[in-house]
């Protein structure tokens, strides 16, 4: 098997282990390329079906194309789509830059807080009803005990210490210093009440692997990743106000791969277009501990 097939097989294996071991399982879908590859792997693992909800945290500041794309695929692929949000913070305008908090706090409220409360079921979840063709309040309010996330260990420092199955305590906190051992494809699938497990099928993938796989499988991605003629494109997707396009004339997946391998991005981190990463030294690490991804 070639490297992409090996990565794919391990990913599928991990998804199936998760499905067999967790009753309340969900998968986070940020609409970005990584979690879309993850979604594709789920469809591979379960032969076209996605037997657990896909959860999206809607900050309502996402670039509009992202939400259009999300709902288009939801309909086309008949996905069990669920979204959550921080209604209170949005109403109180605790947002950035048009509201009254700074960038990191906006992230904390709209992403971390919303994620935490959507996962544990204390805030409403909105599930897409395919028959009614609209989102409706989800009756299921049970906490998710297994959360599948598309993080990669090459994204930034703290993630290299991750496990495929990584426990989180009740506060969503992650103890980097004391991680469970993980070997021989045996994972931590037992967990104490009140805690949950994050599952990372893409841990070993690189940004290039992701694009090569998207190319090989013909996975549909948001148009924002490609230059539409203005010489700019997004390398990483997030909220409109805090995500900036990079200069690039990559018009399709192949162009992106070439650009990554030999072009100007070969030595520049992927998330450099994301402002919150720079705000404070360990900004992302802090948010991460609190559960944002």
């Amino acid at each position, binding site marked *: *098997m070639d*490297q*992409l*097939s090996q990565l*794919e*097989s*391990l990913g*599928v*294996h991990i998804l*199936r*282990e998760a*499905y*067999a071991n967790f009753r309340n399982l969900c998968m986070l879908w940020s609409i970005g390329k990584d979690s879309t590859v993850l979604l594709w792997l789920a*469809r*591979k*693992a*379960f*032969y*076209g*079906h996605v037997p657990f909800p896909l959860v999206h945290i809607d900050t309502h500041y996402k670039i509009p194309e992202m939400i259009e794309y999300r709902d288009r695929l939801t309909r086309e692929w*008949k996905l069990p789509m669920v979204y959550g949000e921080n209604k209170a913070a949005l109403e109180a305008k605790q947002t950035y830059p048009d509201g009254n908090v700074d960038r990191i706090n906006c992230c904390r409220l709209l992403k971390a807080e919303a994620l935490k409360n959507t996962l544990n079921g204390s805030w409403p979840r909105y599930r897409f009803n395919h028959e009614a063709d609209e989102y409706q309040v989800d009756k299921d309010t049970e906490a998710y005990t297994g959360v599948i996330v598309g993080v990669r*260990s*090459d*994204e*930034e*420092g703290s993630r*290299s210490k991750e*496990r495929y199955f990584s426990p989180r305590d009740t506060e969503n906190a992650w103890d980097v*210093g*004391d*991680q*469970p*051992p*993980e*070997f*021989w*494809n*045996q994972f*931590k699938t*037992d*967990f*104490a009440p009140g805690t949950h497990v994050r599952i990372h099928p893409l841990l*070993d993938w*690189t*940004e*290039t*692997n992701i694009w*090569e796989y998207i190319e090989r*499988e013909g996975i549909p991605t948001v148009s924002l990743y490609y230059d539409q003629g203005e010489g700019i494109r997004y390398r990483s997707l997030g909220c409109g106000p805090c995500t900036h396009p990079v200069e690039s004339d990559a018009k399709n997946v192949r162009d992106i791969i070439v650009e*990554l*391998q*030999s072009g100007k991005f*070969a*030595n*520049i*981190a*992927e998330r*450099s277009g994301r402002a919150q*990463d720079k705000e404070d030294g360990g900004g*992302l690490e802090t948010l991460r501990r609190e559960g944002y991804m």
Partner: protein
Amino acid sequence: MSGPNGKKMSSLEHMNVVITGHVDHGKSTVIGRLMADTGSLPEGKLDQVKASCARNSKPFEYAFLLDALKDEQSQGITIDSARVFFKTKKRHYIIIDAPGHIEFLKNMVTGAARAEAAFLTIDAAEGVQENSRRHGYLLSMLGIKQMCVLVNKMDLVDYDQKVYKSVVRKYTRFLKNINMENVKFIPVSGMEGDNIASMSKNMPWWKGDTVLTLIDKFKKEKAPVDLPFRMPVQDVYKFTAMGDSRRIIAGTISTGTLKLGDELVFYPSGKKSKVAGIEQFNGDPPETVPSGAATGFTMSEQIYTKRGDLVVRAGEKPPQTGNVMRVNLFWLGREPFVRDKEYILKTGTERVRMKLFDTIKVIDASNLNSDGMKKMVERHDVADCVLSTKRPIAFDLVEDFPQTSRFVIVDGYEIAGGGIIREVIRDNKANYRDRVMDRNLKWDTSDIPRESRSETYGHAPSLILVGGPEDKRKAAFAKTIEKKMFAEGNKVYYLGVQNVLAGLDSDMEIKRHQTYPEDREEMVRHLAELANILLDAGIILVATVSGLTYDEQEMFRTSVSPETVRTVWVGNTDGLEVEADYVITDVGEASEHLESVMKMLKTKGIGK
């Protein structure tokens, strides 16, 4: 698997190599030196670190490079605390450095299990230390076959060949004890750069490899595609609710190759079926799938199988089945591994309750001193012991197929140990299991799938055992269960031991209270075989057996496995050793319990 140079990694070969060794024997220094001398560092980094050391008037250490580089992670560059990326003309390497102090061993095991080869550093001046041995032992148990010992700090011993040789001699003797073969050695100095990326001028006596030339000599492990086929059943998918009628057996192939049309045997039941189709989500379905692939297939005959079963190809070496096994294990848990406590054993996709049955030898891995009297396995110990699982499972022995001989032990919520199975110990039920397996292998399966029967009948087949001391009222109670279930539209049948005695067993001299143990066993076996046939016909069978023992209950379970067996005990519980789902102590009041018994059966999924 990336880095600055890593962006083109896909075209070159990749390899993960772990580096281990006693603390302060120079892991970080060797890695730092290797990075520096192969030009794998970001430009200016070396000078920057050197300058910063000079400013703070502390001596420069190559190990600082690793720390300094951590700051660069956010720019996606070269290194992070756990993995160092570098490349040669031949390959891209990820050197896995297991960080952490308290939890070092957990990280090391995790890192090493992902590696194809290992370096281990030994300080030439200090010689072989506790963790030099412990790590060597763990590497061997984890199945690492390629290892190179770096005898480091040669500069401290004047590059003396004698010192080098003495370390090699000592450590080789140790490795021999743990059956680790073909281990390479190199004398190096991480600090001075001797034999790291270039041949040492200080050791003209050394004509062998440098770290750099040796790493390229590690061989890529070939995927075990030519070995016999092994696949643990990960799940059986039937997404009927989503309009999909396929029944797909899913799993990742451990060894060998799956082919369309293969005849497969499912262990521990020994039931067999053929591969009707290999399933794939998109693209043309393949005709063969290699080891390592996550796959799924449909079967020509719908035999019952479940997560945890081990699938092999008919005619190839069968796996072992059993519930008592001798193993080698290492323990990482904070609490020691003790007898009389229940744990969970996971092997392949199987998950079963287990206990430590006996400790044959507990070895302090650091010095290989064994303690035959020690009855528990403490954190970081290695042990030779016997485990017993609650029910028989399928597995291989390490000498046959290492992949499917591996297991982990869960204590509470944590993976606390891991090991390899060396031997199966045959218990008194093993013979019967073999017979059942043989029967299942020879079974001529009907064309009507098991599911179709269940769908038409509206319920799955199952066995309700009614045990208890000899008493006519027990049989009478069993019949009321039959009646009640029948009235509810179930295909149910009552079978009393008497019926079997009179017919099938008429050749046996069985008189009341005078049954010879062998005869009794034979009789129960007959009943168990009959039960299997009736269940295969889709029926819910209610059978009474006086004085049902635990072994007999096991026999029924083995025979009809993996269909459901539920046991109701009626009467005095003095002789009760079976696992009963419902107990009625007063036979006279049995009828009053009918409703609750029915309720119990229903919640356990028996009947409509």
